[in-house]
């Protein structure tokens, strides 16, 4: 593992609610982020991700636990003395200052010499592609340009850590996708650790080295985008990221084959070697992503790994068809099949029945209800 730049140990924070009672925003969080890593904090609103970000930037005082930045305990260091900068959700550009003065703010308040300041402001603006707009006021810029100014302002002082609080949420879809790639490139170029907060899973999957999924103040899983998607640690992660079909049942081994039998009698086939710790007893959940199904013909018996469903609806979504239905036992199933299987889809729409094939090796078994609080 690479050298860590920031480490949180047992970080806890509880807020009082206006209507009485309290809410636990951070529940003894341990987190370690490596130098030059792009980490995304992903979770639904109210999961504690913004509180975690504010704890790192210094706007939230922890009730318990500690934060180390680059080997130094910064738990009690005030926000303005932490070498951490933030790109705010609404950009928070100073409306009474030009682009130049906004970007130069961090250097001006720390009295960096004029020539050095101008050079660094110029470099930061060039880096985000805004050279030549120094004299503009924030209100004279488009949303995308304001976003870039906020970014330039946050990187100009070369922080050890850059925090980004849902910075792309106000941009339209095309611009957002362009900025995702640009942010990723910028991070590689700067060599600064990024901690990016979002509730948009697509954004998280696209940009991150690792994703930390938060729910109810607890890190549910922290792993690479591939693993978080393919091998979710618990059912919350499985349902929060991407669409999934979950089947809860009891594991069974016969002839060296592993399968799972649900209460409704459906049998899901899995492969032992594809699941690191296949559980022996108790309740287990099998996860199948909709795109892991393919349409088999009605008489197709090549594989025993299939599922017959009664089709309720087929939805055309461009390159794919989404098939929504339920099993004989009444469990909802959704499958996504390529639109190129047009003949079979027509047949499904006719008969209202479908046989969904899947590869047992792609079935992911979720052993236990990991940390969910």
């Amino acid at each position: 593992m690479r050298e860590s730049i920031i480490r949180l140990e047992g970080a806890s924070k509880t807020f009082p609610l206006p209507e009485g009672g309290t809410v636990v925003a951070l529940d003894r969080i341990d987190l370690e982020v490596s130098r030059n890593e792009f980490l995304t904090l992903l979770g639904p609103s109210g999961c504690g991700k913004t509180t975690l970000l504010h704890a790192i930037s210094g706007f939230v005082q922890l009730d318990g636990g500690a934060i180390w930045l680059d080997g130094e305990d910064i738990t009690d260091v005030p926000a303005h003395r932490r070498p951490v900068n933030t790109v705010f959700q609404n950009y928070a550009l100073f409306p009474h200052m030009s682009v130049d003065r906004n970007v130069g703010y961090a250097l001006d308040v720390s009295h960096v010499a004029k020539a050095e300041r101008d050079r660094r402001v110029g470099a930061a603006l060039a880096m985000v592609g805004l050279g030549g707009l120094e004299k503009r006021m924030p209100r004279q810029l488009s949303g995308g340009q304001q976003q870039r100014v906020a970014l330039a302002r946050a990187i100009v002082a070369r922080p050890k850590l850059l925090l980004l609080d849902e910075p792309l949420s106000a941009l339209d879809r095309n611009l957002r996708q362009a900025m995702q790639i640009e942010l990723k490139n910028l991070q590689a170029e700067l060599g600064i650790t990024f901690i990016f907060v979002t509730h948009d899973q697509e954004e998280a999957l696209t940009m991150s080295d690792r994703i930390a999924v938060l729910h109810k103040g607890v890190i549910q899983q922290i792993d690479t985008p591939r693993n978080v998607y393919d091998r979710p640690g618990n059912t919350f992660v499985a349902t929060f990221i991407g669409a999934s079909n979950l089947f809860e049942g009891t594991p069974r081994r016969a002839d060296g084959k592993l399968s799972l039998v649900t209460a409704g009698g459906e049998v899901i086939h899995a492969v032992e070697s594809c699941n690191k710790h296949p559980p022996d007893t108790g309740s287990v959940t099998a996860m199948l992503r909709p795109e892991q199904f393919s349409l088999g013909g009605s008489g197709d018996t090549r594989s025993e790994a299939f599922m017959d469903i009664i089709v309720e609806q087929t939805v055309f979504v461009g390159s794919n068809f989404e098939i929504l239905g339920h099993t004989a036992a009444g469990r909802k199933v959704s499958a996504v099949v390529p639109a190129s299987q047009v003949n079979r889809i027509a047949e499904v729409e006719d008969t209202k029945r479908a046989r969904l094939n899947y590869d047992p090796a792609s079935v992911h078994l979720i052993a236990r209800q990991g940390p969910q609080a």
Partner: protein
Amino acid sequence: MSALTRTQRLSAQLGILIGPASLFLAVFFICPLAIMAIYSVLAPGTYGGVVWDFYPHNFGRILGFADPDFEIYDPVYFSIFLRSLKIALITVLLTLLVCYPAAFQVSRLPERWKAFGLFLITLPFFASLIVRLFIWVLILKKTGFINVALMDMGIIAAPLELIYTDGAIILGMVYIFIPFMFLPVYASVEKLDWSLVRASQDLGANGIQTFFRIILPLTLPGIVGGSIIVFIPALGNFIVPAVLGGAKVLMLGNLIEQQFLSARNWPFGSALAMLVMASVLLLLYLYIRFEARRGDEAPAIR
């Protein structure tokens, strides 16, 4: 076929809407003002009224070119003008000093308490101004609350000169003008976007830097607005000096009142009033220039 275009209809509607207000202002504000402007350059009649001769010496009596046939220049009027200016400026400063921090306190209160705080600030408007000023007389006079209390405690032997001083006038002025300063200042403080303050701290600015670089510039419109709203009536105020200044301290407002009601020298009173107005207009002009310059550089708050 409609005889009127859309634009014509709109301007007709506009005329109906603002017509009455314009007419009212024309009759009851512009006309008296014009009369006063004309009177200020006419000669005073011996038994009141005006003589229709051009007579610039009304202004001369104040500014240094008094009528040589009649009197020698006495700088007393000009010093009254300067003292009024000084007292008005001190009033602005003190009300600002009280209201600016208070506005931050109130704006950070929970929603329910905020409304209550604003109610408390405007509460004095519910009682008569004269009554409120006479209460200060009771507190400040020789046998008033403060003097009696201090003497009973043995801290002072003889009563202090509290009332009928510049200090008493300033106290009274600050007291009555606080709501006028508070409301505009509060409006701009309430509008302040606290995420900007956080951004400033995040970028390494300490409290003092954040105040002078972010908070002060962004609340300046309220400060300037409040200062003007307090300065203008403070400069011409005659009730406070009349009640708390006694006969000792004369301010422009009292002088003008005297000229119209006792001395019956309407042209001289008019000239004094014009002078007050000129200083206010000068101030407003400077303010507009300042706003225009700010407007080039700073935006409407988004």
